[in-house]
């Protein structure tokens, strides 16, 4: 309904542009800006909610109420925290590599927003339906490692550097099984385009049932990619102070924090799209389905974070290279054979 | 539309910069980086020719993908060698690596 209204609005605006002879690239730029603004608002609102949700869930897992004072159910807690963080002094260490230090949070944040260009929110509601959808997401995710290395190196602090190196090793190790698990879905759907993948799931069943192994591999690897417990070694407070963002404070630190939750949300929505059929579902409007499925994964990730202990570095590497990678490869081969037959 | 000559000029400039770096820099890591720049320029050429001479043909992309494979293998090996050098003699100046010379 809303979608149709927006589409008709776009049609009429386009007609106005053509009628007045205004250049069409202005319209293109205008739509692009509006899409970016929409995506940004979506991410910021969700991140505000996610942080509150995480604190509530952690509270209830640990048998305490979590934030309660600011607003109803403590809903305004994140807003208050955000204001506090923004008002703090923004320190750049004296020994820091200034430009790299300043750029690192941006290099981390921008790709995590750009991922949302291809995520389908609902039928036809997608900023741009790229034909390389999943590859695009994987390519953007690869910016994370350089950004962490930049942050760790430029801080001129051994904890930061150790955290960055650990984190980079972890992300590289888990990127391989992650992409292999995504490839299983791609082989089944026969396309990299996310809307095609959803259409393929509408024709058959959710890929969760056709790719159970791939799904488990994807989910574990995605948890590791978003640096969450049990894989939060890069920022293991008890060992490394705060990992790569030890020296970051105020606004820049909040950008890293924002990135972390934006990545979590991105991973969850991608999982929903790849394995649970995205926005498709009966009775409820597509967008509601999309939100429900995404938040299902978000909740799962938070639940796991607050119930499992952190694993050791050697266990982390063993799990990635000696378990997930072979399993993902076998899964891919079996899927390929299945599709050919 | 971009004239083919512009793209070829771009890739030739990129290749020239990489060539200069690979020939004049004695830091092993910087040499590896320069070589990567050259390989990138080669990829641009492959793709440009394939897109302009025979637009629907995927072969230009395929050759570029092979070049990337080789580049990745080369960087992995090169960095392993550089790491070993830096452990053995605390220096990665390629002119000082002559322990294999007779």
């Amino acid at each position, binding site marked *: 309904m809303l979608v149709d209204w927006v589409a008709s609005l776009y049609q009429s605006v386009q007609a106005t542009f053509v009628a007045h002879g205004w250049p069409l690239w202005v319209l293109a730029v205008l739509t692009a800006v509006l899409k970016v603004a929409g995506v940004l608002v979506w991410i910021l609102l969700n991140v505000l909610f996610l942080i509150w949700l995480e604190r509530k869930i952690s509270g209830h897992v640990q048998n305490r109420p979590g934030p309660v004072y600011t607003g109803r159910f403590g809903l305004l807690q994140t807003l208050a925290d955000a204001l506090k963080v923004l008002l703090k002094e923004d320190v750049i260490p004296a020994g820091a590599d200034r430009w790299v230090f300043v750029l690192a949070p941006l290099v981390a944040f921008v790709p995590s927003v750009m991922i949302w260009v291809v995520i389908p929110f609902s039928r036809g509601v997608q900023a741009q339906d790229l034909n390389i959808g999943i590859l695009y997401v994987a390519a953007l995710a690869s910016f994370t490692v350089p950004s962490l290395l930049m942050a760790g190196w430029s801080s001129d602090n051994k904890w930061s550097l150790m955290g960055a190196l650990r984190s980079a090793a972890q992300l590289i190790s888990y990127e391989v099984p992650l992409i292999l698990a995504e490839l299983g879905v791609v082989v089944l759907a026969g396309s990299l385009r996310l809307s095609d993948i959803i259409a393929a799931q509408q024709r058959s069943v959710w890929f969760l049932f056709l790719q159970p192994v791939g799904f488990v591999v994807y989910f574990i690897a995605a948890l590791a990619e978003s640096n969450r417990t049990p894989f939060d070694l890069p920022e293991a407070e008890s060992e490394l102070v705060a990992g790569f963002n030890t020296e970051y404070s105020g606004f820049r630190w909040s950008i890293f924090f924002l990135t972390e939750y934006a990545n979590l949300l991105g991973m969850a929505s991608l999982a929903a799209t790849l394995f649970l059929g995205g926005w498709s579902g009966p009775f409820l409007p597509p967008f509601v389905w999309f939100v429900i499925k995404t938040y299902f994964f978000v909740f799962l990730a938070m639940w796991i974070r607050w119930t499992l202990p952190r694993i050791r570095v050697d266990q982390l590497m063993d799990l990635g290279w000696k378990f997930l990678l072979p399993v993902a490869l076998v899964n891919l081969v079996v899927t390929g054979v299945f599709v050919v037959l | 539309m971009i004239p083919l000559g512009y793209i070829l000029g771009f890739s030739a400039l990129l290749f*020239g910069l990489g060539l200069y770096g690979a020939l004049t820099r004695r830091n092993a890591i910087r040499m590896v980086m320069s070589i990567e720049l050259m390989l990138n320029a080669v990829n641009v050429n492959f793709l440009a020719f394939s897109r302009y001479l025979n637009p629907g043909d995927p072969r230009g992309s395929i050759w570029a993908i092979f070049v990337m494979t080789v580049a990745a293998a080369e960087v992995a090996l090169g960095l392993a060698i550089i790491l070993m050098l830096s452990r053995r003699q605390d*220096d990665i100046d390629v002119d000082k690596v002559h322990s294999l010379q007779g």
Partner: protein
Amino acid sequence: MNTTLLAFFIVAFISLVAAWRVITDPSILHAGLWMGLSFVGVAGIFLLLEAEFLAGVQVLVYVGAITTIILFGIMLSDVGEVRVGPEPPGWVQAGAAWHRGLRHAFPLLVAAGFAGTMLGLYTQSGWGQLRERPLELAGLSVGGIGRELFSTFALPFEIASLVLLAALLGAIVLAMREEER
């Protein structure tokens, strides 16, 4: 001037400046980061040539793997820079002692000379006539690349995978410490 051409100039300029900084930046780590930027610029060129798949692979391989490995290598080897700054040949140093800027400009001059020579060669050959021919809008489909890769190029593809495997094993063996062998 149309937007594609404008975009091409911007992307090419960024990529070339980054490439120039790779060989002239005094800090080796900054050089590595500039290299990453240059790779992203080349991916932009691929996008302008309407090869989205290759652009994605370019970012994935060059930014995600190669830049990361090189940054890792820099941080692990911890040797910093050997012989800081560029060293042009003796005749340039003699002539340019009065002008330090030329030391940084020299790579650009060499590259420009090389590019000029190459473009001259291109125009000598039959490709010269292609200068004005616009890019036809026949999209490169991912499926087409895949089919060609696994039929005509199946053997090279397998050999490439063997090369990667050999490189992987070689890198592991080389990087092992002596006592671990």
